């Protein structure tokens, strides 16, 4: 009764687009999160700008997270497509954005998870649809509607709950699951 009614966001999600947002939100629902605890910030529209928006926004969100974490148990999730750049260089972009903005990079004890679907979120959706996936392949098709990813998110939630991805899993998804587990679930 009334416990969550005064909405206070417990997790901010910074992501590139609607497909990433819906997929990850549905995954979190499957993992037991209440929607009212989430705040979504999607990159605004604009060809090629989504990755850059997330990158520019990241240090701001990181600073905000740090200013609030002593008062509230909050988490920050950042989702950015690997594209041709790949996982390390995408994370490097975020680190460099912090440096440019004089913000210390995230530390190991911070509940800040960086997820890098590679090539993009469609690669993960294809894997969760039962396909074997090549992360160097940019051609996995989009869903007709972003909202159709419900079953894909459910499949991932089930795999995460049993702590086992179907082999062979894309490396980016494996790393993302590890980030989620260590930085979000275990960091309480």
């Amino acid at each position, binding site marked *: 009764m009334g416990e969550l009614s005064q909405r206070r966001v417990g997790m901010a999600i910074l992501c590139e687009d609607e497909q990433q947002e819906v997929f990850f939100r549905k995954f979190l629902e499957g993992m037991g999160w209440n929607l009212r605890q989430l705040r979504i910030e999607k990159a605004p*529209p604009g060809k090629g700008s989504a990755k850059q928006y997330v990158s520019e926004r990241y240090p701001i969100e990181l600073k905000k997270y740090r200013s609030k974490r002593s008062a509230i148990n909050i988490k920050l999730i950042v989702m950015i497509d690997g594209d041709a750049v790949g996982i390390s260089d995408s994370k490097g972009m975020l680190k460099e954005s912090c440096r440019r903005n004089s913000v210390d990079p995230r530390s190991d004890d911070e509940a800040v998870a960086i997820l890098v679907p590679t090539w993009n979120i469609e690669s993960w959706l294809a894997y969760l649809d039962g396909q074997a996936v090549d992360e160097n392949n940019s051609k996995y098709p989009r869903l007709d509607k*972003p909202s159709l990813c419900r079953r894909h998110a459910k499949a991932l939630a089930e795999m995460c709950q049993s702590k086992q991805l179907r082999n062979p899993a894309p490396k980016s998804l494996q790393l993302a699951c590890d980030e989620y587990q260590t930085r979000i679930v275990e960091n309480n």
Partner: protein
Amino acid sequence: MIKRIYVDNYKCFVNFELRFEPLTLLLGRNGAGKTSVLDIMFALRELLSGRVKISDEGIFPANTLTAWQTNRFQTFQLDTDVDGDVFSYRLVVEQNQAERMFRIKEESLKDGERNFLFNCQLGEVQLYRDDLSPGPKYSVDWSESALARIPARHDNTRLTKFLDFMRGVVVCGMYPASFQAEIVEYEEMLNRDASNFASWYQHQQLENPDSIEKFKRKLEEVIDGFDSARLEKTGSSRRAFRISFLEEGKQKYELSLNEISDGQRALLALYALTELYSGTKNPLYLDEPENYVSLAEIQPWLIELYDRCGESIPQAVICSHHPEVINYLGSIHGVLLNREQSGATRVNDLSDVISGDAEVGITLSEIIARGWEN
């Protein structure tokens, strides 16, 4: 769902066409026609419910003619898909102000293959059966919808299906200050301003008891201290909508619907729409649903609506100016209405606005706030 509307010679709509998706956000400046789209849906619903005449206030009176046109005919066309059955409804209204004659010149319903299921020309009806064979012919009052008068029969189930669907279209631009706490009778349909929320809730309580319980559990998350809602008997045929609050360290207390805040009433109504219309076939046409609602509550409700659209709620069409709504829904679900130099409204493709060359994108709401969407 309603897939397409065509309008000619109604307010700012001249030869105007608009396509809808399961979730559509209508954007545009003041006077672009966003609310007028909802006005038309409301008028068509009322007409097809058999409750009104063509010239009644809020339907298609003569003052809805496009001001700069001399044509006295207004045309409205709806293409719908109701559980896989495709229908095309056409209404032509004649506004003869000189002779003070306002009538329906043409009203027809066709199926997906363009076969007539109903045809009325100048007050002469030709009915068709489900198997497309001609049925009875007769004369009707051309000041109201003849289609609305057709009773359900075993051989006109398709026509009836269309009518039932249209009669269930919800059109709402909430005005919480008008919500009446007292209920005198059950009301199946929410008023345009939701002023009969309590009466409508009473109907839902009978029709949808399981959904009512889910709705109450949702309110516990959304409204501070919400404990329960009930309908209290206040007279032989009167009831009052009462909400009880239980906050930590305080005694339980009750308030009437008209004693809570406008924002709390708005939240009640918004979550009632998503919970109680879930699993029904009713499309929702909502005018600025975010009004009165605190900033923190807008995105959570939009997410609830988004997750249900196209599934448990067949369709939602929202008009909004609010940045939260625009930024959450606009880039994929937004449709921009724009008045051209001629005065007529056209649909602009938002992809022209958003496929820009900005190195770092600015939000869609900021683009619109700067007037850069055109």
